[in-house]
Structure formats: structure tokens, C-alpha cells
């Protein structure tokens, strides 16, 4: 057992699988000598050498496109996009190829590869360094999209992603990188892809989120409990594509009320998908409108304005009270 932060947990997952499988190869900007701008790959160049931990030029389409070719030849690349805001340079490779080789070739070729991307606000960064656009990947057939929320599930989820026979967009909530530590077991764990997790049980209202928002929801649930005597259930989606409808519907069947929270823009976001699934499969249970507390449909502000902009537990608590009184 060791107590680690999320950066260390991710580093651990990479180290473990790189030791087990010589085909695991990392590519990214500044991931070698520099250990990654967030230090997730620290020490890996030293242990595994330059053929397996590859510092690349600044060329995101190059990184993803080349890694696709490597996958097809038999390697298992894990790419780092320095920030999710610079993955759009590679979007044509992601949409056009990463997600498609299996379907296109009727299974002859597959792309078992992971694309790690730090996302989200809260680190006082300049433009393009705080956005969340997970919905774009979740909307792209053929991709699996996951978001960890703690050091322990970061490790188990990255391991599962690296073992998956199909591509995974691994969206890392950078605000949590060093936010807290958690005990992780000595032996690696695997979090099954596609599964949500109830992180707090309750039957009065269902609070749904992922990544850095899980802590916001937990805080809101505490407040609701302490101040209002309300028992909120908190669901950590973890997997955005596929999405675990069952866990959502089961919870709302109990609670009759749901709030979904994310940092990314609202229109066609993950919250829209959650609300739509509930409107489709849990309508009869719903006793109040499904509320979305999300990033607004405006640009993520420069950091002086980010605290005002980001969803927080106060907003969740307020919305919960409204729904409970509905």
C-alpha cells in the first residue's frame, strides 16, 4: 500500500504495464527528458529508454497518426497530448482513423491505443489550457472515453485502457493531479471500462458527474446532508463512452430527481446525453426536471474569471433544493 497523488498513480500504471509488455511505447511532447509538463512520465525515459519513451516535435496529428501506424504494426502506444486544448490539431486523425480502422478493415486491423489528455479548469492557466471537450470524443463512434476522479481509479482505469483492444481517450482532470493522495494497493487493479460508480448512496436526489466535478458533488452532498437532512446519491460516471445507463436509471428510479454536472459547455455536452437517457428510460420516475449545471456556452474565461465561471457545490446545492421543492 502506498499513498499517492494522481500524477504518481498514472505514472505507476504506465510503469507497471511498460514492465509487463515491451510493446507499450509512449509518445508525446516533452514526455522524455522533461518527464512531461505535469511530470506524469517522470523517470520513464531513464528506465525504458528513448525507443519506448519518445519525445516528439510539436505536431499533434503527427503523434496520433504515427501512433496509429505503430499500433497496427503491433506496438501499444500511449500518447500524451500536452493539453486537451491542443488535441484538435489531431482531430482528423482521431475521427478519421483512430476510431475507424477496426470497422474499416472488418477487424483485420485494430488500434489498441490510449490518448491521454489533461483537461479542465482550476489551475490558473492561459487560454486553451482549461477547456473540457469530452463530448466531442463521446460523440465519435469507435472511441471509448474515460475520466478518472481519484488516484486509485486513475491507475486502475489507465491500466484497463491500456489493455483494451480498442482506442481509449483518457481525459485527465488536471486540477486533481496533485489535489489529494489516496492509498493504492500493491497489486495493479483494473477498473472495467464502461462502468459508473455510486460513490455515495442516497435516495433523495441523484447527483451525476465525473472527473474533478465528483469532489464538487461530494461536497454538495455533504452540505445537503448537514444543512437540509437530504440524502443525495452521487454517481461518478467514469466512462462517458460507453455510458452506463443502468446505474443512472436505477438511481433515479429511487430518487426521482437528477442533477448532472460538468465543466464543458452545455449544448450537446455529456449532461445532455445523461438527461436524454433519463428522459428516454426513466421518465416515469422523474418527479422534477433534470437539471444541468455545466460550463456555459461561452468561451472558458481567462483565469481571473474562472472561479466565477466554474460549476461549484453552491450551485449544485441550490439546484438540489429547487428540485426537492418542485
Amino acid at each position: 500500500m502506498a499513498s499517492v497523488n494522481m500524477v504518481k498513480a498514472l505514472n505507476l500504471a504506465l510503469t507497471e504495464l511498460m514492465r509487463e509488455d515491451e510493446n507499450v511505447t509512449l509518445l508525446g511532447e516533452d514526455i522524455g527528458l522533461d518527464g512531461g509538463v505535469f511530470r506524469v512520465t517522470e523517470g520513464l525515459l531513464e528506465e525504458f529508454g528513448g525507443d519506448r519513451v519518445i519525445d516528439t516535435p510539436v505536431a499533434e496529428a503527427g503523434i496520433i497518426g504515427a501512433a496509429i501506424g505503430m499500433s497496427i504494426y503491433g506496438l501499444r502506444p500511449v500518447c500524451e497530448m500536452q493539453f486537451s486544448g491542443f488535441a484538435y490539431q489531431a482531430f482528423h486523425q482521431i475521427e478519421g482513423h483512430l476510431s475507424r480502422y477496426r470497422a474499416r478493415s472488418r477487424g483485420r486491423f485494430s488500434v489498441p491505443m490510449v490518448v491521454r489528455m489533461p483537461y479542465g479548469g482550476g489551475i490558473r492557466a492561459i487560454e486553451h489550457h482549461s477547456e473540457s471537450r469530452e463530448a466531442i470524443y463521446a460523440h465519435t463512434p469507435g472511441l471509448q472515453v474515460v475520466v478518472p476522479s481519484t488516484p486509485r481509479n486513475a491507475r486502475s482505469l489507465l491500466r484497463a485502457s491500456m489493455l483494451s483492444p480498442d482506442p481509449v481517450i483518457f481525459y485527465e482532470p488536471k486540477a486533481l493531479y496533485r489535489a489529494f493522495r489516496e492509498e493504492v494497493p500493491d497489486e495493479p487493479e483494473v477498473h472495467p471500462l464502461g462502468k459508473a460508480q455510486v460513490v455515495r448512496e442516497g435516495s433523495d436526489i441523484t447527483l451525476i458527474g465525473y472527473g474533478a466535478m465528483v469532489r464538487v458533488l461530494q461536497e454538495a452532498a455533504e452540505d445537503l446532508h448537514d444543512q437540509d437532512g437530504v440524502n443525495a446519491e452521487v454517481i461518478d460516471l467514469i466512462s462517458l463512452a460507453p455510458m452506463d445507463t443502468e446505474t443512472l436509471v436505477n438511481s433515479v428510479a429511487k430518487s426521482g430527481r437528477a442533477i448532472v454536472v460538468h465543466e464543458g459547455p452545455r449544448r450537446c455536452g455529456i449532461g445532455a446525453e445523461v438527461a436524454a437517457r433519463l428522459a428516454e428510460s426513466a421518465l416515469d420516475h422523474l418527479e422534477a426536471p433534470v437539471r444541468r449545471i455545466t460550463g456555459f456556452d461561452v468561451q472558458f474565461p481567462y483565469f481571473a474569471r474562472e472561479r466565477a465561471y466554474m460549476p461549484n457545490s453552491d450551485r449544485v446545492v441550490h439546484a438540489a433544493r429547487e428540485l426537492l421543492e418542485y
Partner: protein
Amino acid sequence: MPKKTIDIQPNLTHLAILNEHGEVDESLAPKLDGDTLVTMFRHMLATRRLDERMINMQRQGRIGTYGPSRGQEASQVGTAMALRPDDWTAQAFREMGMTLTRGWLMDLTLYFWGGYEEGNAVAEGHNDLPIAVPVASQNLHGVGIAWAMKIKKKDSVCITYVGDGGTSEGDFHEAMNFAGVYELPLIFIVQNNQFAISHPRRKQTKSRTLAQKALAYGFDGVQVDGNDVLAVYSATRDAVEKARKGGGPTLIECVTYRLSMHTTADDPTRYREDEEVKEWEKRDPLIRFAKYLRNKGVLDDASIEGIENDIKEEIAAAITRYENYEGLDPLDSFKYILADLPADLRAQQEEFITALRNEGQMSH
């Protein structure tokens, strides 16, 4: 503190061996035995004949839109002939001649342009990527394959194809740059057929040649007569040998011409003169190669007729299989999306099955 000219020591060559009259420069001609020469010719002719038939099939509504290869047989066959089976290719979408040379069944061509994913189901053992429609995107997959070869210490190489038009894309640049930096066993074949749909070569880039683009990435460029299969083969073989020995990438510009339309949906008279086409027809790669092989005594009327008949049969058999294909299951969309179908997709599949049953689009 001077003002001086920088010498970048470019290694930029032009190569031509077999001219329009079927004459070769013996000092440069590759030493190939008769069988190999005939194989080369057979692939070129098969490409020509299947191409003609595909256009025909399209006109009859038996396949969809089709993108012809006519005129580019030397560039496609000549490059592919320089490879071993353990080498790989990463093609664009106009490389039928390459695929036939690499042993693909003609069926795949029919399926692809007939609208079936089956056309991209490259057979096990064939180390070729399927057709990549987004221009120049495949160059990066070639990079990855060549890179993996190098990491795995293989002496295999990869060829990646791109059109003249494709050299304008960012992906081409990133691929060239990676190939240079990591000294990959990768050969870029630019089929400069003078057009990106209607956009002529001279309006695509201001550089005098496409070959010289290699200088921006610190490796060698070669411009060959792309209608001269011997020059194409020879330049590719040299580049392949260099790459196998760790000598890194080469860019080969095959100067050729798209004698036909961009696709069967295209009307080239809108943007080019018939005169120009006629000029290029005189440089037809098949005619000059046949002349050479006849002069050399490797081929004669009888043997050519034999080859023609073989090809005709091969095409006919492939068309029969294509037109009698019974594997068209719409559920394949769900079969090949992910290795394991997750719950929410299983539910969608159920919905799809129900809809198809309702609509009589599914028998079972």
C-alpha cells in the same frame, strides 16, 4: 560577419530510363530477368483492364463512383514491385495497380467501389493498409509502421503513397518531418498526376519540383519519369535498399498524368484541354513498356494475347463473385465497431434489428 550563401548540399536527382519510343538507357536499366519483366507488364495491363471495366460497371450502375488509375500504372506497379512481402504499404485511394501487384484480389476493388466495407478487409498476410480517403492522412500511418519496424529492429521498409495535391496538407509535412528526424525506413511516393481534381500542379505549390520538398526535411528527393516503369522501379529499389540499411527516408516524385477523370463523377473538360491529354497519351506507360519488351523479345503477340485472356478471366470471375455476394448484413456495423459490444450499443443493436425486421430489410 558576412553575407553568404548557405549550401544545404541537396541531393536531388532526376531519373528517366525508358523513353516514349520504348528505348532504354542501358547504363541505368535495372537488371531484371524476363519473368520479372513480364510480371511487371502483367500487373500494369491488369490494372489498365480492370480500370476500364470499373468505369464501364459504374456507367451501368453496377458499382458506385470510381476513381480511375489510367496513366499511372507504371508509378503504381513499379513502386510495388520493389517491395518484399514483409514490407508494408500505406496507400491513398488511387493505388489499385499497387494493390494488384501486392497480390490483392480484384474482388476488393469491386467491393470498395461497390459500397462494401469488404473492399477494405485486407486479407491476412497482406501487409498493406486499406484505402485512406482523407488526403495525405495515410502518410502518418506509414510513419508509424516504419517507426515500429525500426524500433523492432526489422530490416523491412514501408512505402506510403500521396498525390501531388496531398503534398499541400499538413499531414504530409508532419509525416515528412517525423521520417527525417527519426530516420525511418519510409519511402514517400508522390504520384504527381498533375491534378488535385481540377487544381493543376502549378497552382498547388510554387516549388519547381515536388521532389525538392525533401530538402526541407533534410533527406533526399528524386524525381522520376512516372510513366517509365523501369525508372520508377529503379529509384524505388534504390530507396528501399538505402532504407533497409538504416539510411532513412526518400521522397520519390513520379511525374505522371491522370489520363482519365478524377472520378466517374468528374468532368475534366471543365478544367483542362484535350490537347494536353493527347500529349500525355503519347507517353502512355503501357505502350512504351510493351514496345520495349517486344523489342527485347520477352513478349510477342501471342504471349500478350495470353495475358489479356488471363486478365479477362480474372476480372470476369471477380465480377461474378461480387455480383453474387450474399454477405450483406447490415448488422456488421455493430460487429466491427469495438471488439466487445458494450451494453448501450447492444441496446442500439436491438433497436436496429427491430427496425430492420419491421421494414423487411432483414430476413432472419
